[in-house]
């Protein structure tokens, strides 16, 4: 079960920063590497042919053309854009990114080209017309986006039952449609565009937040000024207004930043953050560690429940596989084989998004727990079976000859001996289960990894990811070491 990969992947993207940064600077003949959260309509998404299209896609292509450079666009989730920009993995990020004070501390922006507000999107007929109606309800946002920040700030004021954080629009809209969430708070232009041809959904309310979008680049890189100058020219030529008309069906208001040339947002202090300030930023850590601890609690709760559930299920399956009737054995074997072959992530998505259509709608926590239990039960069953089969036949015969029933034979004689054999592989399995809880972030579960990605998007700094890695290490490493010790001990005992 090597599904903790997502986390590793994020780390692997962020870590080789310095090298990359060095190699990238000043090579203006290279294509501009652009990161975009594809699917963010109408800014950047795929058309039916698979081509990247949208307001910002056209804009960034035009900007690159004016700078005499090729453009290379890659799909990066919204909350990954910040680490990608700071690490130099990409030169420039688009995705209706709002310019904020915090973000300016670790990145630079060109002048804005769109003034936006947030919005509330609801299901038609749900009876929810405004934010006030969401008291005690579950609202959803895109992890780390402006909507997330607004909802977090106003959590208590409006008495939301919970803020659920998604990666991208599609899964959130699926959950809104089936009623798992009651409202979705996000940028108004994107939601108006999305809801346009969805009769079941409507944008119920504009939420005045202000905020302007622009392109984000590495802090104080030469590209910022170049891009800014091109945008000035494009505004003066009416290119951006034309884009607005094309994608929103109406010309832009002359008083908005889409038309008016405005100043480039001042960088915070003009200092390029060094490695330590970027990855081991004390202030960011202090600001975000309460969030991480909350995530850790969720991770531990999910891990413990899944481990216990998996053990119980595994034991039952193992006993059934060894001693039940032929037909039951067949089904148990099929179960074990199937669930050891299905990637946990696929199963999790099926449980979370498909089961509601047959009337079984589980919360993210229980969906994740179910997936983890179902899969770890299959693995645990094989471990128990191997353990039981390792017990000499004479132990069974002696128990039977003494007249012990099946239950007592198992509980008093066989299992206590099998447990010793299976403790090392079971502990390994437990470690895997805990790592796999990180996958639960795809169903908007606020586990440690999810909290860390959110924190790094809000702070626009990857320190929380490093902190999360350290936290995982701190409580998994002792387990890993303990298993090695046990394994060595048993090896010695064999000699």
């Amino acid at each position, binding site marked *: 079960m090597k599904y903790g990969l997502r986390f590793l992947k994020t780390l692997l993207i962020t870590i080789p920063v310095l090298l990359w940064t060095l190699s990238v600077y000043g090579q203006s003949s290279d294509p501009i590497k652009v990161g975009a959260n594809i699917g963010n309509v109408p800014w950047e998404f795929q058309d039916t042919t698979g081509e990247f299209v949208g307001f910002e896609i056209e804009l960034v292509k035009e900007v690159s053309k004016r700078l005499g450079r090729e453009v290379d666009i890659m799909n990066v989730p919204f909350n990954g854009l910040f680490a990608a920009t700071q690490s130099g993995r990409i030169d420039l990020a688009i995705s209706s990114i709002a310019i904020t004070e915090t973000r300016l501390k670790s990145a630079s922006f060109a002048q804005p080209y769109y003034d936006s507000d947030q919005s509330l999107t609801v299901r038609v007929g749900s009876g929810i017309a405004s934010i006030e109606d969401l008291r005690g309800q579950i609202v959803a946002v895109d992890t780390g986006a402006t909507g997330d920040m607004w909802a977090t700030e106003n959590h208590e004021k409006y008495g939301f039952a919970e803020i659920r954080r998604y990666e991208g629009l599609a899964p959130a809209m699926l959950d809104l449609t089936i009623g798992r969430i009651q409202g979705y708070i996000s940028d108004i232009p994107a939601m108006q565009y999305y809801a346009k041809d969805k009769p079941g959904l409507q944008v119920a309310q504009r939420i005045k937040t202000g905020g302007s979008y622009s392109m984000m680049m590495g802090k104080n890189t030469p590209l910022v000024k170049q891009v800014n100058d091109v945008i000035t020219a494009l505004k003066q030529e009416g290119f951006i207004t034309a884009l607005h008309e094309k994608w929103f069906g109406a010309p832009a208001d002359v008083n908005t930043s889409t038309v008016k040339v405005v100043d480039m947002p001042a960088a915070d202090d003009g200092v390029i953050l060094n490695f330590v300030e970027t990855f081991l930023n004390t202030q960011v850590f202090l600001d975000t560690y309460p969030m991480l601890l909350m995530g850790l609690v969720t991770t531990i709760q999910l891990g413990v429940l899944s481990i216990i559930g998996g053990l119980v299920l595994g034991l039952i399956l193992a006993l059934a596989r060894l001693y039940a009737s032929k037909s039951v054995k067949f089904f148990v074997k099929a179960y074990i084989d199937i669930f050891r072959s299905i990637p946990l992530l696929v199963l999790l998505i099926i449980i979370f998004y498909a089961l509601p259509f047959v009337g079984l709608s589980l919360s993210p926590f229980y969906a994740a727990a179910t997936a983890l239990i179902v899969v770890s039960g299959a693995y645990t069953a094989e471990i128990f079976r191997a353990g039981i089969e390792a017990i*000499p036949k*004479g*132990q069974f*015969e*002696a128990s*039977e*000859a*003494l*007249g*012990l*029933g099946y239950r*007592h034979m198992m509980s*008093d*004689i066989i299992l*206590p*001996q099998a447990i*010793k054999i299976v403790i090392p592989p079971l502990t390994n399995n437990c470690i895997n289960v805990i790592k796999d809880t990180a996958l639960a972030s795809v169903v908007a579960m606020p586990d440690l990894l999810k909290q860390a990605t959110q924190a790094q998007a809000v702070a626009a700094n990857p320190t929380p990811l490093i902190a999360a890695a350290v936290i995982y290490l701190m409580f998994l490493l002792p387990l890993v070491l303990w298993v090695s010790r046990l394994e060595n001990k048993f090896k010695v005992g064999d000699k």
Partner: protein
Amino acid sequence: MSSLIKLENVTKHYGTFQALKKINLEVDEGEVVCVIGPSGSGKSTMIRCINLLEQYDDTGKITVDGIEVQKGKNLKNVRAEVGMVFQNFNLFPHLSILKNVMLAPMRTRGISAADAEERALNLLRKVGIAEQADKFPTQLSGGQQQRVAIARALAMEPKVLLFDEPTSALDPEMVGEVLEVIQALALYGVTMIVVTHEMGFARKVADRVIFMDGGQIVEQGSPSDIFDNPKEPRAQNFLKAVLNH
């Protein structure tokens, strides 16, 4: 005297191989029967059928104290009346010597821990291991382990004890101590069926000796009948080989 154990036309097949061929045997209460014969002659298979560690063919019938030995609810009761001692002791390695002896009476006879402990210590004293009660099986010699296994079987107060080559896995110097214990039990009048290669022991202890070969009881009789005056050529050859060894 009524027979405690009765085997009628007992056969046993492993696939096409026939391990037991129409065995008929009655063992009376208090009788000590020793079963001898070459390896693979079906001795162990026969006694393992008596507590259904081996399933015999449907055509035969085995009763213990009038209860038929077959799968189902009664099996546990039959097994509680039939103690067994194995070649490889099969003590429970995760339990102390004392717990090994205490466990089954507590679980199947509903005896309190205190009573079970008292009984277990008595039995361990009888087999001469009481001072090792708190040790674990692997800390004991083979002979000591086998004596514990006998105490464990006795703790159930069975009506009959089955011994499946109880000294075959022992170092030679430990054989004597185990045979002494079994002999003492014989003197107490415990009903026993002993599969053994120890001819001297069989001659001394047995009320009746059974010679098996090829899955059949070939000849039976008193020790002097069998050892001094075997009638069947197969018994004669076997005994000549083992006694002149």
